[in-house]
């Protein structure tokens, strides 16, 4: 019985951590250099 209870608690904690990571986690690092430039003239020839 105690083992089942411990397993359920462990599952609950793992689930809570997964939810926090899913909601609060970051998808990556923004680019550190460069930027957007409009395609024009020579780029479209």
């Amino acid at each position, binding site marked *: 019985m105690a083992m089942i209870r411990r397993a359920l608690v462990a599952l609950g904690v793992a689930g809570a951590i997964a939810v926090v990571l899913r909601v609060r986690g970051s998808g990556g690092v923004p680019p550190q250099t460069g930027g957007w*430039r*409009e395609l024009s003239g020579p780029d*479209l020839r």
Partner: protein
Amino acid sequence: MRIAVVGLGAVGARAARQLVSTAGVTAVILRDIRPARVDEVAASLGTAAVVERPPYTAPPEADVVILAGPAGTHVDEARALVARSVPVVSVSDDVSDVRALLDLGPEAEVRGTTVAVGAAFSPGLTCVLARHAGADFDVVDEVHVAKAGTGGPACAVEHHRSLGAVGLDWRDGGWVRRAGGSGRELCWFPDPVGANDCYRAALPDSLLLVNAFPGVERVTARRAATRRDRFTARLPMLRRPHPEGGPGAVRVEVRGRQGTARAVKVLGAVDRPGVAAGAVAALTAVQLARPERRYLGAAGLAELVDPVPFLRELAHRGVKVAVFGDV
């Protein structure tokens, strides 16, 4: 040329507006299951608009037909048009629609006509950008597409539904099914949209791009979503979809080899998705109406259009494309 637009929602109405201001288009036939909507759109278009009110017993008599109705309605209409050898432009971004439309390819080829599949903002412009970026490479290994924003209410419903469905990634020659809402990646779109977390979703871009780049190793498609979007994706929509979304964006990253070196090219565009989708659909229809069109069968825009003149004409119509790099 006579071009018909079936379905006058956010995209269809914009496509019709683009068409009436296009040289060579003599008539734009308008169809929608809502008679009042047909009259409303026709009133804003002038004399080139030809009103056809429901009920409809036969396909429209036109040189090209743009299908801009709700997802799920495109395949039967396209099949009837292909049987009459009429070129079709579908703006559907529904995976089932895209698959079924691609399956019409052999019949379209036999009948000497073309089905342009996914000719909107994403897919559509994304396919053109991938083709344009891919021209810089000797070998294209990877194509990664991301989109942000929605057009009209049908697009918002599709956004909600796609996050709760299975996404398709192409990996090493096979399809990998991944849960919608997974695979978070921070994608940097052109300003003013900027950085957005993007996730896998049921998006058809990969289906179209794999065909366009034989031998490509990886193709993925993601869409920007908020935390609320992801948590509510498997529930019914909690509120009515908005009539028109704000600015949206697409981003296409192509990786490959230039000689012996590996390289990356990133292209993007920002616009209201409904407006840009309408412009892409209209331009595609005009191209298909020309007798010298080359491609017979069903395909996405990466296989159908020459990207440079297409992007130049889009820029002329206000849809600007950007490249990410050193500035």
